[in-house]
Every structure is written in C-alpha cells, then in structure tokens.
C-alpha cells in the first residue's frame, strides 16, 4: 500500500501541473510567429506609428486645400443663414426617377434610423431607450431636400455631420429618402 502522505504528494503534483498548463496561455498577448519578417512588411502599415513624420503617425492628413477627384464645391456656409439659404433654394442634382430607393433606405437605416427611427418619427432605438433625447420627427420640421442635405453635411447643434460616412451622392440619396418619409 502506498502511504497516504505519498498519495497526497501525487495529488498536489497533479494539481500543480494542471494549474501550470491551464494558465500559461495569455490571450491578451499575440501568439508566437514562425517568421515575423515575412508577415510584417518593412513598409508602413495603415495606422502604424512612424518616426518619419512630426506627429509620429503614419496616417497623415492631406495638405490643406487638397480636393479629391470628383469633388463638388458646396457653397452654403455652416451657419444659420446658410441653412436657411439651402432650405430656400438648394436642389438635388439627382434625377428623382433614377434614385435606388432600396439602397437609400439601407443607408438611412444604418446611419439615421438609430436616432430618427426607421419611419422618421424621431423614435429611434437610442431615443426610446432614453439615451439620446430631443430628436425631432421630420413631420414637425419645415425641411426641404436642400436643408436635409445641408444638415447631413454640417450637422446641426447636437446632431453631428455625416459627411465622412456618406459621400455626396449617398447624402443626396438619403435626403431624397427623408423627404419620402416626411411625405408618407
């Protein structure tokens, strides 16, 4: 018979190895790699840090005044007067018949529906859960397609700008969809 002391040692040994084995995998650190120099290029990666630039980042803003291809000038300034001018006179360059309303609805539901509601009644999920208040129903506002485009581009008070998530064409599509919701 093995003495009780010995079997206790055995058990202790088992426990210790089990603990060791189960605790050595640390998920907050990346794993080992075979040939790191094949996986990571010498060139700069998106978002990486780099000493080549003054602010230490690889991603740099374009030089001031740069415009991208297909850029269209938007002349209305980001002021109350600008909004009123857009409301009064800005018209959509898109042909209403050629707008893909399914696509517009998809975009609207992703970017606006969370606050304005998929029906445009100001009762999106953030509002009904009481996280973000004061979102108007489109029916209560004297909006025109121009003013919607203006608000999408610059934002208004506590609503932010959507110009970096939606390009000009997409903003016009969404604006058309908003006017459709208002008329329903």
């Amino acid at each position, binding site marked *: 018979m093995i003495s009780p002391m010995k079997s206790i040692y055995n058990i202790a040994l088992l426990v210790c190895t089990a603990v060791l084995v189960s605790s050595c995998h640390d998920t907050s650190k990346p794993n080992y790699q075979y040939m790191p120099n094949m996986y990571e290029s010498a060139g700069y990666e998106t978002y990486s840090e780099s000493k080549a630039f003054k602010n230490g980042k690889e991603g740099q803003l374009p030089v001031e005044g740069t415009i991208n291809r297909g850029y269209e000038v938007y002349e209305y300034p980001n002021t109350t007067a600008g909004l009123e001018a857009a409301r009064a006179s800005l018209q959509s360059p898109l042909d209403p018949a050629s707008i893909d309303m399914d696509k517009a609805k998809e975009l609207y539901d992703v970017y606006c529906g969370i606050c304005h509601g998929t029906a445009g009644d100001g009762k999106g999920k953030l509002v009904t859960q*009481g996280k973000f*208040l004061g979102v108007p129903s489109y029916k209560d506002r004297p909006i025109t397609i121009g003013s919607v485009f203006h608000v999408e581009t610059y934002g208004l008070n506590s609503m932010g700008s959507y110009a970096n998530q939606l390009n000009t064409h997409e903003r016009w599509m969404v604006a058309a969809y908003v006017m459709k919701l208002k008329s329903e």
Partner: protein
Amino acid sequence: MKKVGNHHSISRICVFSLAILLTFSLTSIAQNPAPAPASTTAPAADAAAPAAGGDAAKGKELFNTNCAACHKLDAKSTGPALRGVASRRDKAWLYKWIHNSSELIKSGDATAVKLFAENNNAVMTAFPQLSEADIDNILAYTSEPKAEPAKVLPAAGASAGAESNGEGVSNNLILFALAVVMLMLVVMLVLVNRVLTKIAKANGVEVSTKEASMPIWKAFARNQFLVLVASIFLLLASGYYVYGYLMQIGVDQDYEPIQPIHYSHRIHAGSNGIDCKYCHSAARVSKNAGIPSLNICMNCHKNISEVSDTTATPDHSKAFYDGEIKKLYAAVGWDQSTQKYTGKTQPVKWVRIHNLPDYVYFNHSQHVTVAGVECQTCHGPVQTYEVMKQFAPLTMGWCINCHRETDVKMEGNEYYTKIHEELSKKYGVDKLTAAQMGGLECGKCHY
C-alpha cells in the same frame, strides 16, 4: 500475466486526477462570460419623478421631444441648464423667449442679449407652436426638485447587482463546495486508512508490509509487452501534442488585448443596437473596415456624457464607464463645462486585433457588399463582447473552407450575370460556390 499489487492506489489516483480535471474544466466553463443582464429601461428614472401632478409629466414629454436636444436639467449642453429657470426669470419673459428668442434678442431686451452673448451666440429654435399652457407644463417639470439619487440608486443598484450577481455567486459556490468535498474525501481516506490499520493491529492481523509487494515500476519494467505498448502510446500522444502546438503558432484566435479606452461592443452594437457599419463605415466600400475616427464617437457622445445606472454591471461600475467616456473627451479635446473643443487632442492608440500576414489580400467590400456575408459569420457574436477579441482563426484553411461551402450571391449582381451563367453551365449547377468562381486560385489571395 502476473498479478501485481497496489491496484487500489493507482485507481484512486486516477479517480482523483479525473476529479481534479473535472473541477478545472468546470472553472473554464464558469469563466465563459455570463450573459450580461439586458439593460431594461430605467425603472430608476420613473421612480425618480415624483407624481407632482399631471403637469410635470406632460411637461417632461414636451421637454424630451422639443428641448432635450439642447438643454439638460442639471448640466450645460448647447443651452444652459434649465432646472429652476422659472425662479430665475420672469414668466412673461419666458413665454416670449421660448416662443421666439431671436425676436426678443433683436428687440434689444438686455437679459436676452446678455444670455445670447454668454452662449456663443447659439440660436435657440423658435417654438411658436407651444401654447402658454404647454410652456407652464415644461416649467413645472424644470422646477421639480432634483431627485435624491441616494434614495433611488442603492435600491436599484443593489437589486440589479444581486440579480446579475446570482449566477456568478452560485458558480463560485459550486466550485467552492466541490473543493471542500474533495478535501474532505482526502482527509476521510487518510482517517479510514489509519483506523483500519489500527483495528487490524488490535486484532492481531499482520498488515501487509511494503516488502511483500514488488514496487509498481519494477513490475512494469519487467513486463516488456507493457513497456512496448506504453512507449508507443507515449510517442503517439506526444506527437499529437507537439503537432497541435506547432500548428497553433501564428494563429491568434481569441486574442483579446487591453484597449486604451474600454469600449464595449456589447453596449453599443448590442443593447443599443447601433449598426456595425455606422462606425465601420468603410467596410461597405473598401478593403479595410476601418476603426472609426473620434469625431464619429462625438456624434453621440457630445450628448451622452455618462451611462445610465442600468448599464453598469457587477464587473464594471457606472463610475468606471463614465471614466472611460472622460478618456474619450480628453482624446478629442472636448471641454464638457463649456461644451467646446479645446483643440488639444491626442491620438487613441487602439491595439489592432485582426491582422493577416502581408502576403494575403483580403477585401471587406467583396465579402460584405458583393457576397452579402454578415459580419458575425467571420467576427462572431460581436454584439455580446464586452471586450473585442478575434473569433476566427484567420488561417488559409478557414478561408478556403468557406469558399468551398458558400454560394455567391447571383441575384442583383448584373455586372457578373454573364460569367455566372457561363460558369453555371460549365459546372452544371444552379448555385455557384465561391470556389467554383475561382476562389481557390492562389493568385486571388496571394500576390
């Protein structure tokens, strides 16, 4: 075969090790994140509003739909804090102001002009549609005394805590109980052994001594067949483990780094239902899904400066979450008291999780927009992750498997109609898989 002694102690060790293994597997099961309590709509808020007449309740509704975009009760937002404004200002002045503030300012009213200047000349929307009774309701709401948070919070917090703690506690209890039972078993075995020996001695029975039986390892070493079988088994087993270890090198499945801001997908994409593409908007149109820039966060967080009490969980308190939002404000340089950007920014250094080696080309828009694959297929149930982690192994086998099994989306894909038709005819199928489209060609992914 010769019978060797000591069977008992070996089987005992086996049982013990099994029990230990079981407890360990239990721990690892228990460590799976317990489903967080779905944040129910704040009962605390309802309780906080004392039933001070129908007026204030109606006023609250009006306030939330019309005014809350710019005003908070106790904190400056676009406009000043409104609690107790009725005692600060004259009623008639308030009617005029709310009906049309710009007119009042233009008329040269000293208070109005001063107020306008104090608030960076921000224009308040005119509300001609509100009747004086409506405004009275709103003012009744803003005149309510501040609800004592101390009264409501502990109750709500405690009940929420107890509720969601329940699971964690019971798991821990079970584990603890198991450990105690184990210990007791060991102690009992020792005791029983002693008693038995004593009784045996007392009865004059000679307890078999060590010398009587051969040590187990000697018996084992003499049996060549056993040795052969055992060494083959050992070789196979170690080969299996070594192979397993070598294969997982370079695979970062479950990688879960600590991020500079504790940003929770569970709260944003889960309980608040924000669409993935709201933030990762480049996934629609480009190779990268992209990490949202901080101005996208500020679309909401200009207004949301703290989380509600029901959002807090036993693991993360409200104070912790609020502190994380403060970190966001520090990074974008947003001054909460003046509601203005200070211009002092600092980058948030998010730790990149998913990262394919440089020799592989992967394109999000191809999969998300063209193939219509859900984000969750590749990234897992992200809307339940408190901390983001890598769900898929991102190995070549994983990509290839899916290309073999997944059909391409043929409808609404005019650009490819012709090639789809030709390939369907060639393979004699209605539905093409990505592999049949050429998704297994090395050059598609390696360049």
